[in-house]
């Protein structure tokens, strides 16, 4: 099987992989919206959506469990979005109004190209190879560059809606992005300082970061979150702000902006914004997991290669590239799902910040903190590596 796959032309293989990734990411984003409803319901002491079921499916015994989990609501929601009447307000700029949701989805799904979501055991070289669509050296830079394009959609949506609240939402989105992007980038620089040994070949690749957390030794196997907790914290806060999640959901805060930038949007166009938000969350938490939580390594100081070697002792099938890849993806997805859960958990814990608080925190707290953090680690790493 795997031999046949690897014998295919490279371009076809990449196209297949790309489609596979999007085919996984898109429904996952949808499923996340369902999970969000469930988690919020559970936190509020409600069972949440648990009624919808296709009548014929109801005859299958044991399916009540899935019904209680609200699995069918997910499909019902999707169907509803497709079948709803497409209302276009008369006062909007139609071209940009339609463009905005597309601009939201495209960068959100594009960034995934640069994120490795697993590694497989390559027996020929006896090394872990990344599972990634485009294994470039600019990794993280590309992720940041492309994902921040997503904010154009919010500005575009706010502006094209030709109405005050969406416009304010769009303006807020852009201001918030600028404020937090800075701290975010500064907070990850220590990680790359640490990864790139002086004199060696420099790289911004995310795979290299995971490799660096897979090394033997105390510092090698340590996840960056223990090594640089402050960086991880700043990155996390900035990530919440960048993905417009509560408590930073200024662009859509319904308490003061009705629905924010998507007030005038309905049915599938609105759904696309939603998918984009979740895709951003996925990519963002993926990057967080890679940078700070060891990517697809199951435990700190226990790398995936160790796990595979150990499992391979029982059955050699685990050293098969496909199986090892699936294990890696599984571990990574589990971490991702946990991280998404944390997003939801925080959402139902913290009240939304006021807009001026968001700005104050970004510029007066987080930015100086990340600069100080960078200076501290620059000096510390210089001292450690010199000795």
């Amino acid at each position, binding site marked *: 099987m795997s031999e046949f796959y690897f014998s295919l032309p490279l371009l076809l293989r990449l196209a297949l992989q790309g489609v596979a990734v999007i085919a996984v990411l898109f429904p996952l984003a949808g499923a996340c919206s369902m999970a969000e409803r469930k988690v919020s319901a*559970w936190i509020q002491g409600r069972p949440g959506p648990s009624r919808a079921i296709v009548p014929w499916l109801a005859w299958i015994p044991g399916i009540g469990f899935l019904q209680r989990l609200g699995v069918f609501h997910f499909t019902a929601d999707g169907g509803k979005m497709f079948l709803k009447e497409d209302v276009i307000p008369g006062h909007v700029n139609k071209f940009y109004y339609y463009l905005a949701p597309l601009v939201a989805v495209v960068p959100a799904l594009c960034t995934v190209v640069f994120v490795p979501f697993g590694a497989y055991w390559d027996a020929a070289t006896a090394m872990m190879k990344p599972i990634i669509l485009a294994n470039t050296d600019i990794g993280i830079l590309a992720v940041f560059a492309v994902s921040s394009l997503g904010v154009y959609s919010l500005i575009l949506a706010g502006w094209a809606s030709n109405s005050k609240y969406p416009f304010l939402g769009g303006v807020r989105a852009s201001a918030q992005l600028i404020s937090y992007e800075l701290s975010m980038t500064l907070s990850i620089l220590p990680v790359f300082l640490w990864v790139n040994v002086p004199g060696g070949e420099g790289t911004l690749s995310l795979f290299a970061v995971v490799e660096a957390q897979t090394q033997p030794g105390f510092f090698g196997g340590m996840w960056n979150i223990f090594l640089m907790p402050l960086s991880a914290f700043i990155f996390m806060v900035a990530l919440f702000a960048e993905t417009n999640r509560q408590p930073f959901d200024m662009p859509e805060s319904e308490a003061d902006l009705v629905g924010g930038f998507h007030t005038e949007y309905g049915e599938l166009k609105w759904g696309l914004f939603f998918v984009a938000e979740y895709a951003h969350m996925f990519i963002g938490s993926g990057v967080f997991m890679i940078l700070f939580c060891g990517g697809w390594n199951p435990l700190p100081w226990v790398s995936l290669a160790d796990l595979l070697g150990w499992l391979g002792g029982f059955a050699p099938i685990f050293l098969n590239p496909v199986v090892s890849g699936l294990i890696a993806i599984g571990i990574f997805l589990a971490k991702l799902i946990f991280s998404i859960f944390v997003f939801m*958990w*925080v959402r139902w814990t913290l009240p939304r910040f006021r807009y001026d608080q968001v700005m104050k925190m970004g510029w007066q707290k987080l930015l100086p903190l990340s600069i100080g953090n960078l200076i501290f680690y620059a000096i510390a790493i210089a001292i450690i590596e010199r000795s």
Partner: protein
Amino acid sequence: MSFKTVERKPLTLAERTYIPQILGGMKTTFKHLVKPKETLEYPEARPAILPGYRGVPTLVMDPNGREKCVSCQLCEFVCPPKAIRIKPGEIAAESTNAHVEKAPEEFDIDMLRCIYCGLCQEVCPEEAIWLQNVFSVSGYSRDEMVNNKQRLYELGGTLPDQHFKWDKKKAAEEAGNDAH
């Protein structure tokens, strides 16, 4: 008057970073996440209804299965939104209930109008109309939302009655005391 000055301590560094508070909050919400759910899942589980609940107005029979309502129309007059329509009727002379003065021929309560104020129950001299514990009314048309006499009796059923007014009246009549 004495004043007590409450000292407001400045926030500590840990408090100003919000982090302990956030973690504490997350602990609380997580507890709620795993706690049993408190929701009453309505159509399957019904809420317990306390006595004295003012639900849908209904007509009730006395324990002998007779209509209590004498179509005095007091409820019709008192009903603030004019939800009640009564057409008074006579009781046939040969009926066993002939000693009951009158009975409504038609009795409609428009549930689209009723505001569940309970005034009809308060005003009824015969205790014939009661607001009982039916709280979920729905229908596909306006007509369906008007409860007619038959429906009102179906909803109302029989309530315990302490007075047995008609029995006493009949006994009095049979004792030759027909002028009351």
